[in-house]
Structure formats: structure tokens, C-alpha cells
């Protein structure tokens, strides 16, 4: 740990991290504990790991979890099919089982001569027992390969970043080993910084209008999926591509106009429907009788 005691994560030119997030990352790096990141979809959870790796100049290993993922796959897999084929072909490799042990992401991160960053993405997608199967691996940073009777130990404790979308609750024993940070939805000031990072040449007026419209949509009650940072960035990209003037985004009454290209912000038809209905109702209410 002491070797990189002076290295600190402090955001980067393409990623805006709040102070508390940086503190959480640095605390996790200092103590060599995994950091569990939660937050609304689209607030840059996965990107964090990439940025940490870039900022600290560490190699990044990404392990994306699916509903069928097994903890074992992150450690290693025994490729029985290749071995079967080799045995049919009379290949000499077949006699050494070690030839058929394929290391997983965790093993590769452990084995790297430099301290690595390991991203375990969307851990909540996996089976409910998945985190429990990784307890010892993340705690002691070692595991045992039964086929070759070999103990794999991390050369240097990797920086482990785990993201979750809260679809399943994680077991207490697992949580106890992690540090935890919840990425709050950015406030207007932070959002301005984020947009500035992604669109440096954006006109101030357009930015102000777009953010205004964006936060108004977020405040519409009853939306199934509120638009988040990544949707805002997509939307601004579209606005720029279509060359929409800032005036088009403005309205006297926040709810009487539908912002252009709102399809980038609202992601399901019920929400679009709800939104249009609200606009319709307000228009009718606003009309002089």
C-alpha cells in the first residue's frame, strides 16, 4: 500500500467526481478494501472504475455480471471440452490439466505484476448466492485451484470497484467487507460541470435552457424512469446535432411545451404518454375561457 500512498484519485478531465466520491475511492484504495457503488442508473457508476484506472495509471480488468454468472467464472474455468477434443486428437497437452485451466478476471487481476483495478459490474444481476461465494477471495485476495492444487494469491491487492443497481440485496457478510458509496443525483452546479466536461464549446444559453428543461422533466411526478446524467448528455448531443436554438427550449410555463427530441430523455411509452397528457392538461387549463 505504501508504494502508492501518494497516488490519489481526484477526478479527471472527462469525469467529474464529487468530493465525497473521491474520498470514498481514496479510502478504499488506502485500506485495500473493495468499494461498492450504488446509485440511479446512468450516474456514471461503471465509468468510475475506468476513470480510476486511468487516473492512477493502473490496468483495468472488467468483469461484467449476468444473471447466469457464477463466482467460479471470475476465478478460473476448467475447459473440459478442449481437453476432450485434444484427447480425441491425441494431443500431448492433454496430460497436463493445467493447460485447460482458463484464468478468470479475478485471477488475472491478482496475477498482474502491477496493482490492477478490478471492476465487478452490476453484481446484483447475479444469483443471490454470488456475493457469498466471493467473500474469502475479496477478503484475503487469494483462492485455491482444486484441479492443480495451487493457491493463487494476489501479488498486490487490486483496487476492487463493485457496482450495483439494487435489484437484489447483498448479504451482510459481503457488505461488511466493502466500503460503500451512493452516488447521489448531481445538483445543478455539478451537472453544469459534467456537461462542460463533455461539451466544452457549448453555448451558455443553450446549456441553461437544456438543464432547466431537464430538471423540470425530472420533477414530473409519477415517471417510471427519471432521465439521468447519461440521458441528458445524449439529449444535448442530439440538440447540437440538430442545431436547435436555445429559444425552442424555453417556455413561460414549465409544463406547457414539450421539449424537442424528448425521446432521448424519456425511455418508456408510459412516461411519454404521461408527459404528453400533463402538457395537454396544462395547455387546456392555461387557455383563457
Amino acid at each position, binding site marked *: 500500500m505504501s508504494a502508492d500512498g501518494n497516488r490519489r484519485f481526484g477526478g479527471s478531465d472527462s469525469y467529474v467526481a464529487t468530493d465525497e466520491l473521491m474520498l470514498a475511492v481514496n479510502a478504499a484504495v488506502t485500506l485495500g478494501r473493495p468499494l461498492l457503488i450504488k446509485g440511479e442508473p446512468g450516474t456514471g457508476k461503471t465509468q468510475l472504475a475506468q476513470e480510476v484506472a486511468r487516473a492512477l495509471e493502473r490496468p483495468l480488468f472488467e468483469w461484467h455480471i449476468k444473471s447466469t454468472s457464477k463466482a467460479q467464472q471470475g476465478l478460473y474455468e476448467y475447459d473440459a471440452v478442449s481437453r*476432450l477434443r485434444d*484427447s480425441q486428437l491425441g494431443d500431448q497437452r492433454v496430460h497436463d490439466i493445467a493447460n485447460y485451466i482458463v484464468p478468470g478476471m479475478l485471477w488475472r487481476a491478482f496475477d498482474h505484476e502491477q496493482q490492477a483495478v478490478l471492476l465487478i459490474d452490476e453484481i446484483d444481476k447475479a444469483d443471490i448466492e454470488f456475493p457469498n461465494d466471493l467473500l474469502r477471495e475479496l477478503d484475503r485476495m487469494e483462492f485455491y485451484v482444486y484441479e492443480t492444487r495451487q493457491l493463487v494469491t494476489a501479488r498486490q491487492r487490486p483496487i476492487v470497484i463493485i457496482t450495483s443497481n439494487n435489484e437484489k440485496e447483498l448479504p451482510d457478510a459481503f457488505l461488511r467487507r466493502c466500503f460503500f458509496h451512493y452516488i447521489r443525483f448531481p445538483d445543478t452546479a455539478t451537472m453544469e460541470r459534467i456537461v462542460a466536461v463533455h461539451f466544452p464549446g457549448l453555448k451558455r444559453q443553450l446549456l441553461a435552457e437544456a438543464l432547466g428543461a431537464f430538471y423540470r422533466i425530472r420533477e414530473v411526478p409519477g415517471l417510471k424512469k427519471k432521465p439521468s446524467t447519461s440521458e441528458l448528455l445524449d439529449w444535448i448531443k442530439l440538440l447540437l446535432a440538430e442545431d436547435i436554438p436555445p429559444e425552442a427550449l424555453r417556455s413561460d410555463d414549465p409544463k406547457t411545451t414539450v421539449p424537442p427530441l424528448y425521446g432521448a430523455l424519456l425511455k418508456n411509452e408510459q412516461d411519454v404518454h404521461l408527459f404528453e397528457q400533463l402538457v395537454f392538461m396544462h395547455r387546456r387549463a392555461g387557455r383563457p375561457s
Partner: protein
Amino acid sequence: MLIRFFELLRAAGVPVSITEFLALLEVLEKGTLPFSAATAEKGSVPFSVEAFYWLARTVLVKDERHYDRFDRVFAAHFKGVEQAFEAIVADIPAEWLRKHLEGTLSDEEKAKIAALGGWDKLMEELRKRLAEQKGAHHGGNKWIGTGGTSPFGAYGYNPEGIRIGQDGSRNRRAVKVWDRREFANLDDSVELGTRNIKLALRRLRRFARQGAADQLDLDGTIDSTARKAGLLDIHMVPERHNAVKVLLFLDVGGSMDEHVRACEELFSAARTEFKHLEYYYFHNFVYESVWKDNARRYSERTPTTEVLRTYPHDYKLIFVGDASMSPYEIVQAGGSIEHWNEEPGAAWMRRLLATWPHHVWLNPEPEERWEWTPSIRLTRELLEDRMFPLTLEGLDRAMRGLQ
């Protein structure tokens, strides 16, 4: 000091373990607190309450639902402590305030300020007022100065224009981070949505392979063939499905009307979640018959004995009801408000509970009111305390209880 804090956290229901507490001490012991580059650049103090708050939260709290509880404990415990860190109030960037103010003032006003004793005096005054106001507002979550009631207005400009505690003054903001309680609505005993209910119900899922082995277990076949160095070894497995069976008894009408929404959500979630779900309705308490269709509740009723015979013991029994009624409806023969019942409800309840040993009662009434309703206490006794509130958190406990 920290041990007391730890105990308070536990008392407030934040699940903190000793391991986590030791981890916090370890970070603190490292001396150089892992600071963000940003704070370091600003040249502020190397150790602030703000940093400590974030650090402690990162290390100790593992679920955003508990952020609110943590904030409350933190605010209560460290009230006043921030003075010890000095840098907070004293370091309100006076420069910043000055610059901002100067920009908004006319020459005339500037002269007036000079007459009042100059900038420093004015700032001192402001600081004093701020301190006073902080005391006064501590109970609420209000920003200093945003209310527009600041005495500072006497000088002729609106404190709202200065925006203390919003944009520029990060330190000021930091003091109040935990007082804002931004995570108040994430506490899990508040909101119910079908998706959340489904997730809670999912705890009950038991995947099992039952019945005839009629599917080729491809992985198993390849694996065992390979392990046998090429000697073909075919494996078959039965289809995998959720094997949990649920029997749901729902209270309808009367005092349950106000809980209809919560019950509907629970019901629709349960319907899609369990393949084997059987449900019956009752009113207030179970007696000799129940029904499946509310529109025909008087014409088509199912005798409870038939229900008792129909479903095997491995069904999980879930009651949903507020259990709020006259105690006679439970213990007395003939106590039912709708008809003459030969046997008291309690007798029927005991039969049901004996038939299905895995049972819970979900109660939409808030848990703290249970003590004060005799019929709820009676029902709880009958169920040997397996009554849970109809909130996400309660549902979670109930599902654990059913496993």
C-alpha cells in the same frame, strides 16, 4: 468519543459491525486521511468534520436506506464538535463574500459601510448573526439566510443575494450536509411498489428440479464425459422451476378499505411471482367458510375444512389483514359481525396454523399501533408473534420467517 458514536449508531438501527468500526479507526490511524485532490488544492484544513463525515459514512454505512439514520445520529452526536475543528465558521471565505458584496454595492453604500466601521466589522457582525441564526434553526433543515429573515437585511441588501451556504461557501455547506437529511425518503419502511414487493417476495423462491428427468443436461454430460476421458456419459435432469407454493388469505372490507392499495400491490406482485398461488378472502377473521370472488361472496363460499383438506402441508400460509376488530370476533362463538359462527375464530385459526406450519400475518397497520389494539395482540399471540408490518422491510422479515 467514537465508541459512543458506534453504540448510538447501533441503537438507531444502522447495522454496523465491529469489523467496520475497526476499519474506520484504521483509516483514521493512517494519519494522512485519504483526501481528495480538490480539497487539498483549496488549501483548506487537512482534517475537517466534513471529510470525517463522508469517510465515516463510506466505511460504516452499507445501504443508502440507512444514510438518513446515520445523518441523524451524526448530527446529534457531533453537534458542537465542529467548533473543535475551528476552520469551519472562521474560514467562511470572507474574501469571497467581500468580492460578491462589493460587486453589488453602489459607492454611496460603500461609504455607509465605511461609516459603520468597515468591512471587517461588518463581516464580524454577519458571522455573529449567522451563529445566532444557526442556533435558532437547528431543529429544522433550513439554510441560513435563505429564508430572507436574516437581520443582515437591515443594511439594505437581501441575504438571498449573497447566497450564503449555496454556491461559494463550501465549508458552510459542509457543516450542514448531515442536517439536510437528503436521504430521508430512501428509508425502507416508507414506500411500496410492485417491483420492490416482487424483490422482497423473491426471497421465498426455491428453485428445484422435480418430476421426470426429461431434459438433457448438456453441461453435466460434457463435463462427465470429459472427466471420463471421452467415454460418453449422458446425464438427464428434470426441468427447473420455482417450487414455492403460497396460500394467501386476504381480509377485505370494513377497516381494510384504507389499505386497499397496499394489498392490491402485494397481490399483483405475488401473482406473477409464484406459480402456485392460491388465495381466499375473509372478513375480519377466518371462520367456517371463505370465498374466492368478492362479487359472489354470499353465494359461492368454500368451506374452510375443504381448504384445509385440499392443500398439502408444504404450502406457505400468508394472512393479510389489519386484525383490527372487536376481540369477541376472535375468541367468542357467535362473535362474528356477519353471521352466527358455531365455533370461535381462534379455533379455526389454530386449525389453519396447525395444517400449514409455515405461516405469517402481514398487517398494514403501523407496527407501533399494534400494542394498543387488543384484537391485534390476540392475533399475534395466536400466531406466536409471526406478525409483520406490510412495509418492504416487514415483508422482508416475513419472507425470512417463512423460509
